[in-house]
């Protein structure tokens, strides 16, 4: 009996674990002016986002005064946002320019002033198809095998000083498809000598243009891009993924850099609803047509932006989600007088046309099921 009482007492005590909510008495930071933007050299449509901190979510500001100074001279003044707190900056600035962006709202002013980083000299890229590439899908947390496009990039380091970069890839890919839809049409038939009207399902198909699915580039075999994570295939603790493909020149200081990433695209193969199941077959003009242009760019950034991108990698990897354990993490900010990050980037881009109105029927391996 005593033992039984003891066990009951223990269970009761364990179940008495509790939570309690108490008011948080910290400095009220609601209403702090924030401005963020990734501003590119030689671009006439840079966007700046202006907001204020809020209890549940930030409040976008559409009537702030934004001034842009290039090399000490006022370049433009914007009084209204272009869209939902975004301000379109049309001032064009170049590598080496000293640019100041100033935001004023209800008596509060913040600014960021910096010299634009040097532009990469040149970027060379090539794209090749690699069949049956086995890799670890971080999102699905399992190994997968797919045909992937291998992107090889080469560029010379800007100088032998410490330089910071970001590899950017952009896919402009689409294909034509036959979309099968159903619709109800009125029909009639004579049954037992009587005319009967009823709804009938009718299938029809039409040619559409679909964007291909673009997956996160696979970078695990590229040492410059995997500095901050495990270079092996072991993903168990690989909580950090170099989502923004940021890197420094510690591995190629003053010389050429070679990068290799794999891009997985889905042009509609393996659709769950293949057209042939509807009794349709391709004729020549229905054979899909494929377009795939791969843009590859090297962005030169300053040290501050390099670490901001690392922080954002942490965000994408969920590193700051366990607030119960780590508490809130104080974010980086590079503006004076408020919060946010206004960063300046010099980007050199090259374009690789992989498929230009390509009809796979010419390739046996790409013929769809007829």
């Amino acid at each position, binding site marked *: 009996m005593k033992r039984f009482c003891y066990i009951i007492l223990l269970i009761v005590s364990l179940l008495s674990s509790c939570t309690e*909510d108490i008011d948080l008495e910290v400095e009220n930071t609601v209403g702090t002016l924030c401005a963020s933007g990734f501003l590119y050299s030689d671009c006439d449509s840079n966007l700046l986002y202006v907001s204020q901190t809020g*209890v549940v979510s930030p409040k976008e500001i559409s009537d702030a005064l934004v001034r842009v100074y290039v090399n000490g001279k006022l370049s433009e003044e914007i009084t209204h946002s272009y869209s939902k707190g975004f301000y379109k900056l049309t001032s064009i600035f170049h590598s080496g320019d000293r640019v100041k962006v100033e935001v004023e709202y209800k008596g509060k002013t913040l600014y960021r002033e910096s010299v634009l980083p040097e532009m990469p000299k040149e970027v060379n890229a090539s794209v090749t198809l690699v069949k049956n590439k086995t890799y670890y899908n971080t999102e699905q947390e399992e190994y997968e095998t797919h045909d992937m496009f291998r992107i090889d990039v080469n560029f010379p380091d800007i100088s032998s000083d410490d330089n910071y970069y970001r590899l950017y890839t952009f896919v402009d890919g689409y294909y034509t498809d036959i979309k099968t839809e159903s619709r109800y049409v009125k029909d009639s038939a004579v049954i037992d000598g009587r005319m009967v009207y009823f709804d009938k399902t009718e299938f029809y198909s039409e040619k559409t243009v679909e964007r291909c699915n673009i997956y996160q580039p696979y970078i695990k075999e590229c040492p410059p891009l995997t500095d901050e994570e495990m270079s092996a295939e072991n993903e168990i603790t690989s909580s950090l993924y170099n989502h923004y493909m940021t890197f420094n020149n510690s591995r190629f200081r003053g010389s050429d850099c070679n990068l290799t990433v794999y891009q997985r695209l889905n042009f509609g193969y393996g659709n769950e609803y293949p057209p042939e199941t509807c009794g349709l077959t391709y004729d020549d003009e229905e054979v899909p047509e494929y377009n795939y242009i791969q843009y590859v760019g090297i962005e030169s950034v300053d040290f501050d932006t390099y670490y901001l991108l690392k922080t954002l990698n942490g965000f994408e990897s969920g590193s700051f989600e366990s607030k119960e*354990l780590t508490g809130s993490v104080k974010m980086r900010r590079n503006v004076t007088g408020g919060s946010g990050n206004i960063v300046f980037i010099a980007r050199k881009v090259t374009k690789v046309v992989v498929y230009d109105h390509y009809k796979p029927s010419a390739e046996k391996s790409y013929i769809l099921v007829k």
Partner: protein
Amino acid sequence: MKYLLAFLIVLSGIESYAQKKFTVSGYFTDDKSSETLIGATVYDNLSKHGAISNVFGFYSITLSEGSHSLQYSYVGYTPEVVDFVLTKDTVINVKLKESTALGEVVVTAEKNETGISSPKMGSLDLPVKMIEHTPTLLGETDVMRTIQLTPGVQQGSAGSSAIYVRGGGGDENLVLLDGSPIYKVDHMFGFFSVFTPEAIKKVSFYKTSFPARYNGRVSSVIDVRTKDGDMQNFNKSISIGLLTSRFTFDGPIVKDKTSFSISGRTTYLSLLTTPLMSLLKIDGEKVNVGYWFYDFNAKINHKFSDNDRLYVSFYRGVDKFWVKDKYEYNEEYRKYDDKDKYYLRWGNLLTTARWNHVFAPRLFSNATLSYNKYKMSVGNEYEYTEIYKDTNFKSLECYESEYNSSIVDLGFSDDFDFMLNEKHDIKFGVNYINHNFDPETSHLKLVSKSNLPDNIPIDSVVNNPGTKAIYANELSVYVEDDWKICNTLHLNPGFAYTMFSVGKKIYSNYQPRFSLKYSPLEDWSFKGSYTRMSQCVHLLSSTPISLPTDLWVPITENIKPETSDQFSVGVYYTGIKNWEFSLEGYYKKLNNVLEYKDGMSFMGFSSNWQDLVSMGEGTSKGLELLIKKNTGKATGWISYTLSKSDRDFVSDSQVNNGDPFPFTYDRRHNVGVVYNQKFNDRIDLDLTWTFYSGAHATVSNSQEAILFPGTRPGEYTDAYSDLDDSYNNPSNTDYVENRNNYTLPSTHLMCLGVNFHKQKKRCERVFNLSVYNLYNAKNPNFCFSKSVYNSETGGERTILRKITFLTIIPSFTITYKF
């Protein structure tokens, strides 16, 4: 080295001859077990000179030729007086009997290196009895939790056994097991320390006035010595508790020559939780979560002669945590099994061999060879089998992967005690450690096969060395003198030099240490000290709880060693019988202390970790009051600490915009009360109460917008919304103005333990009943901020959610001592 020894022996001979002095030396041992006694006192009643035994129980006292009356004493033991005429160097090995009169719950204040009569400050000896009589969580007596009750020591998060000493970080404590540093000092994510209480002989704790022989951490030293083993009789004890069971077994291999001691502890938490887990199903899958740990200590002690002894000790401690899930599905046409297992395993392996040699009555040496390994593994085993019943198609996919991180230290040290005369006790030595940091290695096995004719089976193994192993060498030499200038003035100057080489970089650190005691009156002492320490390894961690994935890394070419400069003053009073009073003040400055830069945290990887952190300064100052009652039926102490600790980084450090901020465990007021009452031979009671002002946390009460780079200029605009929606809308994140901007609620806790002793025919039985958190205080074991609906305004408000899971917890332990 041999020339130095010869010189010292000759020097001591010349000095003795000139003064007509001789040396009495030997070992203090327990009469019953022959266990050596650390910190025992020998005192000449005629010349008023004294000495204390070192950590191996060896003592040496130099006296003038003639009659002497030496009193040998040790708290808890009956003093012994030896009268004799000294005409030559003499060896007296003393066996003291445990006192039955003083056999009550004894909390000692030994007059030794850490005691009130020593110039050392901020130090404390914790005998096993003190540790055993500190009631703690689930009846698990714990070294660290006892230390938490002493002044100047902060607890980590409520309920944890982590310690933060005088504003220092959690990785700034040098924890030594039989003289060798141990890296992972806790089990169960920080709730229990790795030390099995029954295996411990003595624990010395230093938070300032560090003896020169201790190097490598900047805030404290915890020197744990294990039992040597009884040279006369076999002893056994078994303890059965709610969470763990323990055993010890020691005895002679050859009487008076060789002894052994083994002890172990293990938990059966998984056995208790497995039946509950079998009921648990998540999405149709059977999930099993388990945890297990054990400690094993073994020691052999061999006495070759009065001049030579050998100790070989071994420790192994392992924790394992796992999550298994299994999904079986049997369909009409197919059957498949899906098994998944994740595990986390970590542990220490420590082996030391120590050789004591008495070169001369006044020259004692201890040479230590040590091997120390800490390893952590994270693994995943997955297996998927699929069988189609009609076609007999079978497929198998499985992979095993494991990520490892380890540190291996090979160390050698040689420490000498040279008792030059009654005024000078010189200690010097050399210590070398070869560190091998292997932070990240991995292993992967992938198998995929089926019985289809065109199947290409995959069976591959990838071994990845991961981050390149880092080799580092740490060499330190030291010397210190315990100099009794006169009856009222006692000085302890010391100096240590440490050299740490990593890669192509060599760091040198000069560490002067200085302690002074002035005793103008018999019962009053005034002390002052200055200590400089350095640290060449850091623990990377982002969470307040102890996780095995936290990584130890050495300093690099960019990250300099952390150093501390500490000034202390204190006044001590022992005028009331059985009572001690002390008041100490300190100012400590930490240099090159590390903090993660804004927006950075430990991601579980060591590579490029130095890019994520900045170096800055820390300051800590405080007052510590200790009132202790040492003997009698009621003993215990009250401690109070008033302290303040800050961190300060320069403006371009990217830490808190260069503004100073409070240290996480900057708790203004701490109170610790320990009360031990012996009612009679059968019942004694232990009570502790602690109060901590709230620690600091970084919390946010607002949200700010954060943008992510897109793929082309203008990516936020609607024009590209069909490309990737994630680039259109800024995300929200917590807005924090300053780090550690919130003071958490205070915590207070009372623990009670009652021991019922009963002498049985063949053994003694001790039944311990403990209650943790006696009055069920709702202390926050976890806190986090959260936005909730505000019914008054209809909007939202940010609150702090306190989670308390260590509420009142009764427990018991039954111990049989044979």
